C-alpha cells in the first residue's frame, strides 16, 4: 500500500456553486476512497412548511432549490391531492406538464454547461448557457418569471397560460430546436469530450440498481426507470415521447441521456401547448381532511418524493422531502474510486448533484450507539443540574 493523502475539496470552493465538502483519499494519482459531507445549506424547510398553511407551503417548497423550482411544488401538490380523492382539471394538468418539461430543458442545459466548465471547455459553457437563455425566455412568456414560476397550488395551477402567449412560445421553441440539434451533434462528435468522458466513472447496471440510483444517472446505466412511464402523472401518458436509455453508464452516456432528453422535453412541450384544452385551471380545494398523502414525480435529476400528513387543520403536521441527489450521492463509492484525481471533478458533477435539495435532517443508527430521544435529553439535562447542585452543596 502506497502513501495515502487526503485531498479536501470545499466546503466553500470557488468551483462549487453551493457549499459541500468532499474528502478524497488518494494514493498517488488514484482515488481510493471518498467521503461527502453535506449540511452547509440546511435551512429547515420541512419545519417551515409545517408552520405555513397548505397554499403558503408551495412557495417555501419552491425555494428548496432554484433549479428544481417546479419539481418540488409538483411533488408536494400531488402529495396534498393524494390525501383525499379529488380530480385536477384537465387544463391544469397540461399546464403543469408544460412547466415541468420547460424546467427539465433548462436544468439539463445548465448541467451540460457546467460540465463543460468543469472539463476546462468554456466554449461549451458559453454556448449552452446562451441557448438556455432562450428557454428561460419561453418560461418568462408562459409563467411571467425566469426561475421561480409560482405556478403550482394544491388542486390546480395559480396562473393560466394566455391564448396570445402560446403562439410566441411555440415559435421560440421551434426556433431553438435547430441550435439544440447542432449543439448535441457537436457534443457527440467532439474528440476532446470523447477523450475526457468515455469510459470514465462507469456505473454498472448492477451498481445502479444496488445503489437505487435515479433519473438520468440510472438511465445512462441501462436501467429503464422513469416515473413518467412507470406511474404516469400529468399528461405524460397522452403525449408522444421516448424514454432515453443508454448502456455504458460512463460520464459520456450521462451527457448523451441528458442532451437527448431536452429534445424529448421540447417535443412534449410543443404537443401540450398545441393541444391545450379549454376549461377550469383550479379545483378550488376548500379544506384538506385528515390523512396521509405521497407524491412522486420525475424531476430533472430523478424521482422527487414528498410525504404530507394532514390532521384536518389548514396546515400539514408532517412534511417529508426526499430529493433525487440523496439517492444518487452514494454512487460515488462505485464511480470515483479507482479513477484519477483529475477525472474526479467531472465524475462528481456527472450525477448533477443538487445539495440544497438534499439538506434534510436525518437520524441515523450509528453502529449500535445509543440514539437519544427528546425525553432522554431532558433527563440528561436534569441529571447534570442535580450533579452541579450537589457539588455546590445546594442540596
Amino acid at each position, binding site marked *: 500500500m502506497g502513501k495515502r493523502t487526503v485531498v479536501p475539496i470545499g*466546503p466553500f470552493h*470557488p468551483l462549487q456553486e*453551493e457549499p459541500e465538502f468532499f474528502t478524497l483519499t488518494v494514493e498517488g494519482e488514484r482515488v481510493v476512497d471518498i467521503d461527502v459531507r453535506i449540511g452547509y445549506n440546511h*435551512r*429547515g424547510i420541512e419545519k417551515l412548511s409545517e408552520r405555513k398553511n397548505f397554499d403558503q407551503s408551495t412557495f417555501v417548497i419552491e425555494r428548496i432549490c432554484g433549479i428544481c*423550482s417546479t419539481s418540488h411544488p409538483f411533488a408536494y401538490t400531488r402529495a396534498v391531492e393524494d390525501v383525499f380523492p379529488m380530480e385536477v382539471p384537465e387544463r391544469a394538468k397540461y399546464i403543469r406538464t408544460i412547466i415541468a418539461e420547460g424546467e427539465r430543458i433548462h436544468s439539463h442545459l445548465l448541467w451540460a454547461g457546467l460540465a463543460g466548465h468543469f472539463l476546462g471547455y468554456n466554449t461549451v459553457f*458559453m454556448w449552452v448557457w446562451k441557448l438556455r437563455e432562450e428557454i428561460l425566455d419561453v418560461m418568462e412568456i408562459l409563467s411571467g418569471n425566469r426561475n421561480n414560476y409560482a405556478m403550482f397550488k394544491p388542486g390546480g395551477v395559480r396562473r393560466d397560460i394566455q391564448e396570445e402567449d402560446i403562439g410566441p412560445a411555440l415559435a421560440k421553441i421551434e426556433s431553438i430546436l435547430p441550435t439544440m440539434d447542432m449543439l448535441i451533434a457537436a457534443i457527440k462528435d467532439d474528440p476532446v469530450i470523447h477523450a475526457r468522458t468515455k469510459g470514465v466513472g462507469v456505473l454498472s447496471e448492477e451498481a445502479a440498481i444496488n445503489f437505487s440510483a435515479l433519473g438520468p444517472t440510472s438511465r445512462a446505466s441501462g436501467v429503464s426507470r422513469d416515473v413518467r412511464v412507470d406511474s404516469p402523472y400529468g399528461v405524460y401518458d397522452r403525449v408522444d415521447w421516448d424514454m432515453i436509455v443508454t448502456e455504458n453508464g460512463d460520464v459520456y452516456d450521462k451527457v448523451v441521456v441528458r442532451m437527448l432528453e431536452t429534445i424529448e422535453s421540447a417535443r412534449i412541450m410543443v404537443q401540450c401547448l398545441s393541444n391545450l384544452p379549454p376549461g377550469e385551471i383550479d379545483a378550488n380545494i376548500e379544506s384538506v381532511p385528515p390523512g396521509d398523502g405521497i407524491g412522486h414525480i420525475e424531476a430533472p435529476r430523478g424521482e422527487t418524493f414528498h410525504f404530507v400528513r394532514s390532521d384536518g387543520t389548514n396546515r400539514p403536521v408532517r412534511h417529508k422531502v426526499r430529493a433525487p441527489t440523496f439517492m444518487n450521492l452514494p454512487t460515488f463509492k462505485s464511480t470515483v474510486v479507482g479513477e484519477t484525481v483529475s477525472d474526479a471533478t467531472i465524475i462528481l458533477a456527472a450525477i448533477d448533484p*443538487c445539495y440544497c435539495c438534499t439538506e434534510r435532517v436525518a437520524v441515523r443508527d450509528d453502529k449500535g450507539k445509543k440514539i437519544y430521544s427528546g425525553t432522554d435529553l431532558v433527563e440528561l439535562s436534569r441529571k447534570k443540574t442535580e450533579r452541579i447542585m450537589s457539588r455546590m452543596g445546594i442540596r
Partner: protein
Amino acid sequence: MSIKLKALLKSPWVFHFSTGSCNNCDIEILDCLTPRFDIERFGMLLAGSIKHADVLLVTGSCNRMSADRLRKLYDQVPKPCLVVAIGECSMSRGMFIHSYNCPVPLDHIVPVDVYIPGCPPKPEAIIAGVVKLIEKVRSS
C-alpha cells in the same frame, strides 16, 4: 476617495459566496457572465480566490454553518472590499426568517454596501446593482 478605491472601480473583480442559498441567485450571477449579459465587457471578472477579489457577492440566508466562515473569509479580504447582498434571503432572510437554522441577518456579520432585492434578482438587476455600487463609491 482613496486611490485604492479609485483603482478598484476600473475593473472590480468579484468573488461569489453562497451562504446556504437555493442556487437561484448563484445561477443568475453565472448568467451575468454568459454571452447575453456578459459583464466581463465592463471589466468584471469572477475571481477564484477571495484574496484577488474587490467585491464580495453574498447570496443566501446565512445559516449556522456558514456565518462563522463568512466572517473568516471577510477578514482575509484585502481591504477595501465592497460587499453586495444578492437576493431577498441575504437582505432580510426572506421567508427563512423563522427558520431555526438562520439565526442572524447578513448585515450583522459583515458590513453590506448594496442590497439587490428579488427572488432571484434578474441578471439586469444584478448589473444595475453593481452600477449603483460604483456610483455610490465614486460619489463618496
